[in-house]
């Protein structure tokens, strides 16, 4: 990482101004009826950074991701400067979910949300088809450029599958695969988008040590070699402190601490709320 990081307190504002961040939001609030899931949150993720979001269950972590990628609309505010979401320096608050994905925002899911009846190749190809797909006529006739494009897509997808070491499962129906492999298919699917920023919603949840280790191998490689920006929700603090460069702690919808993971974890307030280890 570039050494531009300012050393600020754990209760300071966003690390990077949201409007200039790879992904950011300014004072975003999301309520469901009487419940305020996300309460005036501002974040700014730097390009190429690996950031973890932690917090107790119900803290609003997943809701925040959902607001960032447009699955939920944030509550509208009177102030035009608040409640805004930025992707790669552009205000995308009014952009549709699928347009944000195409603009480079990938995502994996806590509950996987795979195409369960399809095999691994189909799962990845479906999202690959978002990036590159032939015109209607070319597809219906399967002639000319359509055919070449499909073959090219298939080549790219096979590359992703090879990269994530999913060879032996290529033709297995996703529903029949163990969780560790399913989580990898989920990652493969979002890689097919060729994203700049990936939101990882508990991508290690329910995995064994070895499976987590593998997953990290892939993520670290993507982060370092491809410069992919990672925003990760994760409960395992060892994981968080070992790999991420910055950490954001959410509690009851608000950011209660952010900054260097080791410093954040050492914070007594965070320990009280999150880890439950009193010293």
């Amino acid at each position: 990482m570039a050494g531009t990081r300012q050393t600020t307190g754990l209760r300071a504002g966003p690390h990077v101004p949201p409007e200039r961040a790879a992904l950011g939001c300014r004072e975003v609030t999301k309520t469901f009826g009487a419940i305020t899931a996300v309460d005036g949150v501002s974040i700014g993720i730097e390009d190429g950074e690996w950031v973890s979001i932690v917090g107790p269950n119900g803290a609003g972590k997943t809701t925040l991701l959902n607001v960032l990628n447009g699955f939920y609309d944030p509550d509208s505010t009177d102030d035009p400067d608040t409640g805004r979401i930025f992707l790669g320096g552009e205000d995308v608050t009014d952009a549709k979910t699928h347009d944000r994905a195409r603009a480079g925002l990938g995502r994996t899911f806590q509950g996987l949300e795979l195409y369960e009846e399809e095999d691994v190749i189909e799962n990845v190809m479906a999202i690959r088809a978002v990036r590159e797909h032939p015109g209607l006529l070319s597809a219906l006739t399967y002639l000319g450029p359509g055919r070449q494009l499909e073959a090219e897509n298939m080549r790219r997808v096979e590359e992703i599958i090879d990269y994530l070491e999913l060879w032996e499962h290529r033709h297995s129906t996703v529903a029949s695969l163990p969780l560790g492999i399913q989580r990898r298919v989920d990652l493969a699917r979002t890689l097919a988008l060729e994203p700049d920023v990936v939101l990882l919603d508990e991508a290690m949840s329910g995995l064994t040590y070895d499976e987590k280790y593998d997953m990290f191998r892939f993520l670290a490689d993507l982060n370092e070699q491809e410069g992919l920006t990672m925003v990760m929700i994760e409960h395992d603090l060892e994981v968080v402190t070992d790999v991420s460069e910055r950490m954001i702690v959410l509690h009851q919808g608000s950011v209660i601490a952010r900054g260097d993971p080791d410093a954040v974890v050492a914070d007594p307030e965070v320990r009280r709320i999150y880890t439950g280890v009193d010293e």
Partner: protein
Amino acid sequence: MSDVVDVATGLEFFITGLGKGSVYALIAVGFALIYKVTGVLNFAQGWFAALFGLLPVVLSTSLVVSFEISPLVAVAITVFAGLLLGLVLEFGIFRFFIGEPVLSVIVVTLALVASIEGIVQYLVGPGYRAYPEAVLPDWTVPLALGVELQGPFALAIVFAVATVAALMAFFRYTVMGSILRAAASDQQAAMVLGVSIERTIVVAWAISLTITSIGGVLFAMSTSGWSFAPYTNIGILVFAAVVLGGIDSIPGAFIGAITIGVIEELGTGYLDPVVAPGFGTVLPMLFLLVIILVLPYGLFGTERIERL
């Protein structure tokens, strides 16, 4: 003077609509109940109503076999037959489709539609059959401006309101009601709490078809006789009613059905002569499409927050 007549006509349309709507409500509530508890979209609902509407005619006249049962008893038997058919359907058919894809179940109900059409055509054909005099109510309820509410419609309103109130209380306050809803929400999770899915489905079908049978008979009574075609219309109007109310809501189905009944009657009265015959029956459908675009979960359906 003409103003008074117009108001009276309007009121009459409205009252008839209310009565018709209550008949629809009985059938619609039966539909919503099945959907709520078992997740089955019973496309045969209107056809079941037709079958039940026909049964008193079959039983009390020598139409097919010479039963010659007293008409009132015949109506009672019909309602009981509703309960019985519910049991038969569960034990004979739907039991085998627990946990199967929704589409398969839909096709089963479509196949039931075909089967019922076959039976009805074999028994009586499409023609009109007069109802036995003895079961037709000869009284009416006088209302303002000389408008009267027909006996069958009055009965329908009473039955519909009572049924909806009873079902709402059942689902809200009884353990069995909670269990039925739990089974609808997550079958496996309910099973490991000892809920017998088979039994909940039996209960749902039995209640549903009992209510439907009352609706089917009352509709025939309101036209003093039975014929097939109107029931197929009802079959579709009922879907509109249920969607209007929000597909899984019992009071929603009731209010949706009343709304459909009134719109249909007013449309038929005022717009048929202007546009084309039958427009009144189409009007509720147009209304439905508008509602779906404006209020996707109907008037009373539970809005789900989509989660990821």
